[in-house]
């Protein structure tokens, strides 16, 4: 016992090793389970995920649960009353109006909505929220399609109807782009403006509206947010509320009608009162005017008197002022005269003084000169005594000085004296120098003599010295002689006592003296005296002039004084007059002030009157209009009525629900087929596995293991593989698939984050189904095997009997087959189970691929067929309402003249509702002249046989999808609800894919509606790819008569985008189907090889080449694939037929056909997978061990 405890469970070891050794089989089962669960759970969960995502989004954005619309608008009291009702969590008034906006020449029709932060919250995507009433939010598509940008200004025209003055202004600045929960999808509803189709919505703050009443009230209901909006719970809750609110709504509506009538009566009374008041005020103001006018007349008279007096006074004053000016002038002249006279007098006096000074100076000069002359004369006399020169007095000297000869003598004398003095000085200097030399020699001699005395007489020096002394004594004696001569010369030629200094002084005394000098000085003095005499004469003359001037001045002064008196009298007179005038003036001013006060008062009064009048008139006009409006409303719309609308009336909300349902439909059967194929293959794989292990099971059983214990290995194997696969598949399926599909739907629907639900029921069912299939298959196979006794098991299972197949009975055919094919065919038909499983497996996958590609074909063929084949016109031009003949002529000319336009016709188009007993759908009504015209622009034909369809004069042609929706056939009658309700006979049904059309002739229109159709649109055909096309379009749109131009190409692109979202789902299916096909083929081939290992090994030993051996298997595979593909094509076609009807939406008809290319793709893909799998098998066979053939049979 103890030992056993320590031994690992060998059953477990066996199982684990089994998994390890058969990895590819294990993974095949795992992948198949994963794919099956992923696809089933994933697609099944997509619908609830789509709905939940939107539910959350709508809860977050607080989308209204109910919308109340009143035919006569809603008042604040109405709202208050609504709020008070049970179950109403929030009630808010809102405005919804239609407008047209023009961007880049194209008119678009827009819904203009008010928004608040309490309900229907917009989701800001770009920019910011509006901060004032002049700013707006647009939807992102608006920016994208019109080319407008944030910050641009747009102008909203609200038409001339109910909404003419609904907005406080026309222009708004785009500050952001936003989505609104009110518009989930791309549909924007309809309008009475433009072409009738609303293109965009625009959000404005509440205060941008100035409407009397709200157009809508949005309600949030209690307990609604908690419920899933697409659930019946929610529907029931809201329906309950509607039922409860219905009586209240009727009551309020009646109240509103009544109060409106009261208001009308009241308003009329008020209007009359106001008119009376206005008349009274006018009379009053007219009286005041009259009084004032009288006052003005009086004032004017007084003013005239005053003016004439004033003019007189002004003249007098002028005269006086002239006089004063004259006197002033004269006085100034007098003063000038006197000043001039005084200046003359001063000048004269100064002249007298100056002359005296000059005379005195000259006298002094003369005296000095005379003294100098005296001295000169004495000197001359001294010097010239030797030459007989003697001047007794100055006069004689002056006489000689005047004579040039005499004066030359004098100058010579002076010059000689100066030379003598210079010689004397030189002589004296020479004597002095010589005296100094003698003194020096004497000294030297004495010194030498003394030295000699000291010396021995015999000595040589003595002799030399004595010789020198002798020589010196001789020289000295010579010099002394010379000196004595010179001293003698001094004594003779020079006065005694004369020194160098005294001689120098004498010389300097003589310096500068000459005869000319004295003569010219004397002449100058004489000239001075002449000048003084002349000055005296001038002065006397001036004195005489001065005296004469004085006389004249005295006389003028007397005259001036007389004038001054005269002026003083005149001034007195003027002053008197001025005082008088001043009085008059003051009187007038007072009068004027009074008048002006009166006038101002009147003006104020009048102004007041005018404003009041304008106000009153405006008010009255408003009141009048309102009254008229109210009256008209009452008349036209009858009594007020309230409508309680729930979310099901919101187009986007409903169409999303339908699309989600469609995804649900897609998920109902499609993945089930997928799942079945996968399960079938899993099941086979498990069964084969158990059967392969027959001998091992027998051995185990012989060892004494219980059935359960043995079975657990296989059951565990299957369970593990499928459970792991299922969980992985579930994980991927619950996230990736909803993500791909929701992301795709987001192209045409605006909602928030994707919600990934688990959907426990679906998930668990899918997992259980996958795991259960595999596990139960294992269990079943085990038990059928286990019931046998061990001995039987240990023996090789008798292989299925070789049998003759049916084909062999057809002798000639069988004989003609090659041996290889005989074997192959017999093999194929011997294992019927394997045959069917493989054919169904491959067929299923091929069918899925065909369906997926076919789905794509059907969806995209729509575009090509609709736009390339059916529509023959390229653009639709919308004309303005009630186009005038002039405007139309312009349009006609433009179309006729353009070389680009190939064809055009004017038609009437409108959106109508087509009804039958079973269904109601919106459709476009096109009215043209007759069938031949229509044919030029629309290709009418039967879808199935392409037979052309002609529009008859009587009856309508409807498009195919509309006929399907309404469930009508040719000859049936449908109701058209347009301007009026009429019944029309369906004459034929035409192929058409996008939206619904009803075509009829003008004549039939007139017959039905009783009026001529208004040609409000033009169908045009031209080459849109031509470079001139854009210019043509622009020129057309710019015409007055043209409202809009829609290019089919643009519509095509818009549709193309929305169809893209379906394409994603299709791509997903293609990938999954392809993956499944691959795994199935791989698995089947694998089984085929594994279970025939021994046979193959034997063939190899027999000498089959690798190629032959592979071919042995391939032949079977190829035939199986061919059968499978054939079946797949057939199944695919069926599946596609069914699926296309399931996923189709009301607005579209998908093509019912699968393109040959899609079949080809399916075949190619399946074949390609088959080839890849065969290639893998080839390598596996190559490695096959021949020893296998020697083993005992297991």
């Amino acid at each position: 016992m103890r030992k056993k405890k320590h031994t690992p469970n060998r059953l477990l070891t066996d199982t684990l090793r089994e998994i390890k050794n058969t990895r590819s089989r294990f993974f095949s089962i795992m992948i198949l389970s994963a794919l099956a669960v992923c696809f089933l759970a994933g697609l099944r969960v997509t619908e609830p995920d789509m709905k939940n995502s939107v539910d959350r989004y709508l809860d977050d954005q607080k989308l209204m649960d109910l919308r109340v619309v009143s035919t006569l608008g809603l008042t604040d009291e109405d709202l208050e009353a609504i709020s008070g009702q049970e179950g109403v969590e929030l009630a808010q008034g809102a405005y919804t109006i239609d407008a047209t906006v023009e961007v880049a020449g194209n008119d678009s029709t827009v819904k203009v909505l008010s928004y608040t932060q309490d309900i229907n919250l917009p989701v800001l995507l770009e920019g910011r929220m509006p901060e004032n009433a002049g700013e707006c939010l647009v939807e992102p598509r608006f920016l994208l399609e019109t080319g407008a940008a944030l910050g641009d200004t747009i102008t909203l025209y609200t038409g001339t109807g109910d909404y003419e003055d609904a907005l406080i202004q026309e222009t708004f600045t785009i500050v952001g782009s936003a989505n609104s929960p009110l518009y989930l999808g791309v549909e924007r509803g309809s309008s009475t403006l433009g072409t009738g189709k609303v293109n965009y919505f625009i959000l404005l703050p509440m205060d941008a509206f100035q409407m009397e009443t709200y157009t809508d009230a949005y309600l949030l209901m209690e307990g609604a947010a908690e419920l899933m909006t697409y659930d019946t719970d929610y529907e029931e809750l809201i329906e309950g509320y509607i039922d409860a609110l219905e009586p209240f709504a009727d009551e309020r509506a009646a109240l509103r009608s009544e109060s409106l009538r009261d208001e009308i009566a009241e308003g009329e009374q008020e209007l009359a009162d106001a008119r009376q008041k206005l008349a009274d005020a006018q009379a009053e103001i007219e009286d005041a005017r009259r009084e004032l006018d009288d006052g003005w007349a009086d004032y004017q008279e007084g003013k005239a008197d005053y003016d004439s007096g004033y003019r007189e006074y002004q003249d007098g004053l002028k005269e006086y002022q002239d006089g004063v000016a004259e006197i002033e002038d004269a006085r100034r002249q007098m003063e000038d005269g006197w000043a001039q006279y005084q200046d003359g007098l001063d000048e004269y006096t100064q002249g007298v003084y100056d002359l005296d000074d000059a005379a005195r100076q000259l006298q002094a000069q003369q005296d000095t000169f005379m003294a100098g002359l005296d001295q000169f004369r004495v000197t001359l006399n001294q010097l010239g005594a030797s030459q007989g020169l003697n001047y007794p007095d100055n006069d004689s000297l002056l006489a000689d000085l005047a004579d040039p000869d005499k004066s030359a003598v004098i100058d010579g004398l002076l010059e000689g004296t100066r030379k003598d003095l210079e010689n004397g000085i030189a002589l004296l200097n020479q004597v002095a120098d010589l005296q100094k030399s003698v003194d020096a020699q004497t000294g030297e001699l004495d010194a030498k003599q003394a030295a000699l005395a000291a010396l021995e007489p015999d000595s040589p020096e003595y002799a030399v010295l004595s010789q020198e002394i002798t020589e010196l004594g001789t020289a000295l004696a010579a010099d002394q002689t010379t000196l004595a001569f010179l001293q003698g010369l001094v004594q003779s030629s020079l006065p005694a006592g004369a020194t160098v200094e005294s001689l120098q002084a004498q010389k300097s005394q003589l310096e500068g003296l000459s005869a000319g000098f004295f003569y010219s000085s004397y002449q100058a003095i004489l000239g001075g005296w002449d000048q003084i005499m002349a000055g005296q004469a001038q002065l006397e003359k001036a004195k005489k002039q001065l005296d004469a001037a004085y006389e004249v001045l005295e006389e003028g002064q007397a005259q001036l004084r007389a004038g001054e008196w005269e002026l003083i009298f005149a001034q007195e007179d003027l002053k008197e007059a001025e005082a008088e005038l001043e009085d008059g003036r003051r009187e007038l001013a007072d009068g004027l002030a009074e008048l002006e006060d009166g006038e101002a008062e009147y003006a104020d009064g009048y102004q007041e009157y005018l404003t009041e009048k304008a106000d009153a008139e405006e008010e009255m006009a408003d009141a009048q209009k309102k009254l008229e409006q109210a009256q008209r409303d009452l008349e036209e719309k009858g009594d007020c009525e309230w409508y309680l609308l729930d979310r099901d009336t919101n187009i986007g909300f409903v169409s999303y629900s339908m699309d989600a349902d469609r995804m649900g439909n897609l998920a109902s059967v499609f993945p089930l087929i997928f799942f079945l194929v996968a399960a079938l293959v899993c099941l086979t794989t498990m069964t084969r596995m158990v059967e392969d292990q027959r001998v091992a099971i027998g051995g185990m059983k012989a060892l004494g293991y219980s059935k359960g214990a043995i079975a657990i290995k296989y059951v565990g194997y299957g369970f593990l593989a499928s459970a792991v696969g299922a969980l992985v598949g579930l994980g991927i399926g619950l996230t990736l698939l909803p993500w791909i599909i929701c992301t795709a739907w987001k192209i045409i629907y605006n909602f928030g984050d994707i919600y990934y639900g688990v959907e426990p029921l679906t998930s668990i069912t899918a997992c259980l189904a996958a795991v259960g299939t595999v596990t139960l298959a294992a269990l079943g196979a085990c038990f059928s095997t286990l019931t046998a006794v061990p001995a039987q098991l240990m023996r090789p299972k008798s292989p299925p009997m070789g049998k003759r197949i049916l084909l062999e009975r057809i002798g000639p055919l069988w004989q003609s087959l090659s041996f290889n094919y005989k074997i192959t065919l017999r093999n194929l038909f011997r294992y019927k189970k394997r045959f069917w499983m493989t054919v169904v497996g491959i067929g299923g996958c091929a069918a899925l691929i065909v369906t997926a590609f076919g789905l794509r074909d059907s969806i995209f063929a729509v575009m090509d067929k609709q736009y390339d084949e059916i529509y023959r016109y390229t653009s639709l031009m919308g004309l303005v309402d009630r186009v005038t003949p002039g405007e139309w002529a312009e349009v006609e000319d433009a179309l006729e003249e353009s070389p680009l336009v190939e064809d055009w016709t004017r038609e009437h188009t409108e959106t109508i509702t087509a009804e039958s007993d079973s269904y109601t759908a919106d459709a476009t009504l096109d009215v043209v002249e007759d069938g031949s015209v229509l044919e030029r622009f629309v290709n009418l034909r039967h879808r199935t046989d392409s037979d052309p369809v002609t529009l008859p004069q009587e009856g309508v042609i409807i498009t195919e999808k509309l006929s399907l929706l309404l469930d009508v056939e040719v000859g049936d009658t449908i109701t058209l609800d347009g301007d009026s309700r009429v019944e029309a006979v369906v004459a034929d049904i035409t192929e058409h894919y996008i939206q619904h059309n009803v075509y009829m002739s003008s004549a039939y229109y007139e017959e039905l509606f009783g009026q001529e159709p208004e040609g409000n649109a033009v169908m045009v055909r031209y080459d849109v790819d031509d470079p001139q096309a854009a210019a043509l379009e622009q020129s057309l749109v710019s015409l007055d008569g043209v409202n809009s131009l829609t290019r089919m190409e643009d519509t095509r692109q818009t549709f193309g985008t929305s169809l893209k979202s379906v394409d994603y789902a299709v791509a997903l299916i293609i990938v999954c189907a392809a993956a499944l096909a691959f795994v199935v083929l791989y698995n089947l081939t694998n089984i085929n090889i594994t279970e025939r290992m021994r046979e193959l090994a034997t063939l190899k030993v027999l000498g089959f080449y690798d190629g032959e051996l592979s071919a042995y298997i391939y032949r079977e595979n190829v035939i199986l694939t061919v059968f499978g593909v054939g079946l797949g094509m057939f199944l695919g076609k069926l599946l596609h037929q069914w699926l296309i009807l399931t996923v189709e939406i009301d607005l579209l008809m998908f093509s019912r056909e699968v393109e040959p290319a899609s079949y080809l793709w399916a075949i190619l893909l399946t074949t390609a997978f088959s080839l890849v799998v065969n290639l893998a098998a080839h390598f596996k066979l190559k490695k096959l061990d021949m020893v296998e053939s020697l083993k005992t049979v297991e």
Partner: protein
Amino acid sequence: MAYISLDHVVKRYQMGEVTITAVNDISFEIQKGEFVIIVGPSGAGKTTVLNILGGMDACDEGTILVDGKEISRCSSRQLTSYRRYDIGFVFQFYNLIQNLTALENVELAAQICKDPLPAREVLVHVGLGERLNNFPAQLSGGEQQRVAIARALAKNPKLLLCDEPTGALDYVTGKAILKLLQDTCRHQGMTVVVITHNTAIAPMADKVIHVKNGRVDRVVLNQHPTPVEEIEW
């Protein structure tokens, strides 16, 4: 020159980290038309010899010559051709294709040969003239083995290799099969090699090669082989 000769043949198997020498330096010769029995206990390497001789496996060392052709140097494809044209193989468990009748099983082998014997005749020759169109499941073990022998013979091979041909058969049937093989050798000059662990049947051979532990223990030549009928075991 012998018809078949093995010269110092060595064959090793790599089992994970262990190298097992299944055949260790074996040499022997077989003459054309000889009936040879290779005998030895389980694990002695006789099956390996069969595999190598039958072209199902290549040897690591040594040379093998069959009718002048060096088998030991053949490529995988040449080996297949060798099996195809030169070898007839008889398995212990017959290895018939269950889906083919007796005749068809023989035809299966015959159709890939250059110069096959008529399938029907061969079957008649092995005594199954009455059961040509029976499927293997409808035949007894002995009959199935006869079909297998017919299949091998129809190829008109140079060498008939039999792996324990009586291993799955009872005594009487086994004897009959051995008789068939011996007759084939004697009457048609076919070279037959039988591999068995049953030493009792050794006397019926022209040459008995005893294999033990991967080596040739001894080679016994019977000058006078005993007819099968006289052998008891």
